[in-house]
């Protein structure tokens, strides 16, 4: 499905709203992970507002496409996208991380409509996405499974266990994204524990690999389209992104991985998201 100029504009507008939500939610909660939420926003927006077959009125529709946020700490981005998509009122976003809220600190499928898998412990999402993709094949259903991993997350061995298994099972209904923002909590990934060269690793593990600019809707949409046509193996889309994207003082700053903005900082951030 080619993407039109109008669509790109529409997605940009949604992404802007999502980013505002992320800032407001984390500021309100006083904790959370804005940096990695902002870096994957455009990917999530493309998926939910251009690609995925889902029905917010019927979150558990068996034919729906699935999405697993393996980097579960980016929950604010997912919640904002789900709210904008109509799974629940956007007012709920204010309750993030509060007692009795449906919006837990990390995605919890039992509490939040639209969340397909409980995550938060890194490295586990791809395995469960594999299971969903296998089930799809088994049932002869044509839904697709999308999973988003962090680049630092690739250090978890379980990711490679799962990568090997996905290729082995020829899961061409599975598309993984790597949100390649280059930063993890302790610093640049190349310094902490380099998973580079990510593309070579996935290739060696039997995956089809596509590189994109993770903030370019046309490229993201094009890559997803390409992935749909790849048969016999899973596809990984390595998306070069900017941590904290959209908020100048957060961009490429490792400190904003797991820190919420203060009220004033949030106001400043919102000014750049008009």
């Amino acid at each position, binding site marked *: 499905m080619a993407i039109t100029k109008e669509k790109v504009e529409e997605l940009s507008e949604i992404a802007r709203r999502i980013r505002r939500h992320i800032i407001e939610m984390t500021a309100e909660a006083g904790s959370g992970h804005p940096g990695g939420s902002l870096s994957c926003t455009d990917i999530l927006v493309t998926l939910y507002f251009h690609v995925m077959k889902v029905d917010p009125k019927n979150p558990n529709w068996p034919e729906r496409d699935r999405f697993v946020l393996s980097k579960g700490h980016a929950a604010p981005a997912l919640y904002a996208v789900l709210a904008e998509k109509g799974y629940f009122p956007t007012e709920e976003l204010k309750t993030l*991380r509060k007692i009795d809220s449906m919006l837990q600190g990390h995605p919890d499928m039992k509490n939040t409509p639209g969340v397909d898998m409980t995550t938060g412990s890194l490295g586990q999402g791809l395995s469960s996405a594999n299971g969903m993709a296998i089930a799809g094949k088994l049932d002869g259903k044509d839904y697709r499974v999308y999973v988003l991993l962090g680049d630092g997350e690739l250090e978890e061995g379980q990711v490679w266990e799962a990568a090997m298994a996905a290729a082995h099972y020829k899961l061409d209904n599975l598309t993984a994204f790597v949100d390649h923002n280059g930063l993890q909590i302790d610093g640049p990934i190349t310094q902490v524990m380099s998973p580079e060269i990510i593309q070579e690793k996935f290739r060696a593990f039997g995956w089809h690999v596509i590189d994109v600019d993770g903030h370019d809707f046309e490229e993201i949409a094009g890559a997803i389209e390409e992935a749909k046509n790849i048969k016999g193996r899973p596809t990984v889309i390595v998306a070069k992104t900017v941590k904290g994207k959209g908020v100048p003082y957060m961009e490429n700053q490792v400190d904003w991985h797991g820190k919420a903005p203060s009220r004033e900082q949030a106001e400043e951030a919102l000014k750049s998201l008009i």
Partner: protein
Amino acid sequence: MPKIATREAYGEALAELGEEIKDIVVLDADLSKSTKTSVFAKKFPERFFNMGIAEQNLMGTAAGLATCGKIPFASTFAIFATGRAFEQVRNSICYPNLNVKITATHAGITVGEDGATHQSIEDIALMRALPNMTVISPADAVETKQAVRAAAMLKGPVYLRLGRHPVETIYGENYKFEVGKAVILKEGKDVALIATGVMIAEALKAAEQLSKDGIDAMVINIHTIKPIDEEVILKAAECGSIVTAEEHTIIGGLGSAVAEVLMEKKPVPMKRVGIRDVFARSGKPEELMRVYGLTAEDIEEAAKSLRR
């Protein structure tokens, strides 16, 4: 008294000890700023190893270092140290009885908003089930500092359970920590409150409340859950009833350890205050403590119910 997180005390203690004991090496799994091993890393970069997000590899590597005479402190969040890497801790560290100190932070539900996947409420049960392991759960910053030192001096695997959230200071500077030796914080004769970690502060408050109702409660800090101080438990049993309190599931932790001793040695009525076998949710630490029944009032109520 100021509130200090036990992890903060860990960071300082480790940096101090690093000066003294050159064999200490520190490993972390991409969380050094949170676990506070970053303080050590800054001071001794050549003795600090960041293993990336790979806890299994973290434990295996620590074991390997220990076989070469190092004293590795391996740190990450409690949930990953004891869950993700459980088999590595068991096989590579506990069975060979290697000198690895697993210092895990962010234990319990006071980790707060991160939610169930990050709230380690089973770590004591898991670590206690492993032979050779010493399990320590300090109550405050003072005790943590001494426990870190004691762990470094002790030969063999140690699990140190620390928290993310600032806690009240219980002890003065003259406090002396001894592995395996519980501390009677307050003598009493009507009921014994046995607590560990952050629940010490709550137990002390509960005792105060109880005294207003004419109930004289004994308060005991069992900081070393394994090996457990049986003597102190038997002494506590003389009060006729016991309440245990822990920021952990009531299955397999302090409550179970005390129940095991009591049942076999001196059965008296007891109640376990803890997380009642459920996964907790996101929220502020104080809220969670209230919702999951971990406050002074909960201890007080349990104590009173035993006297009825």
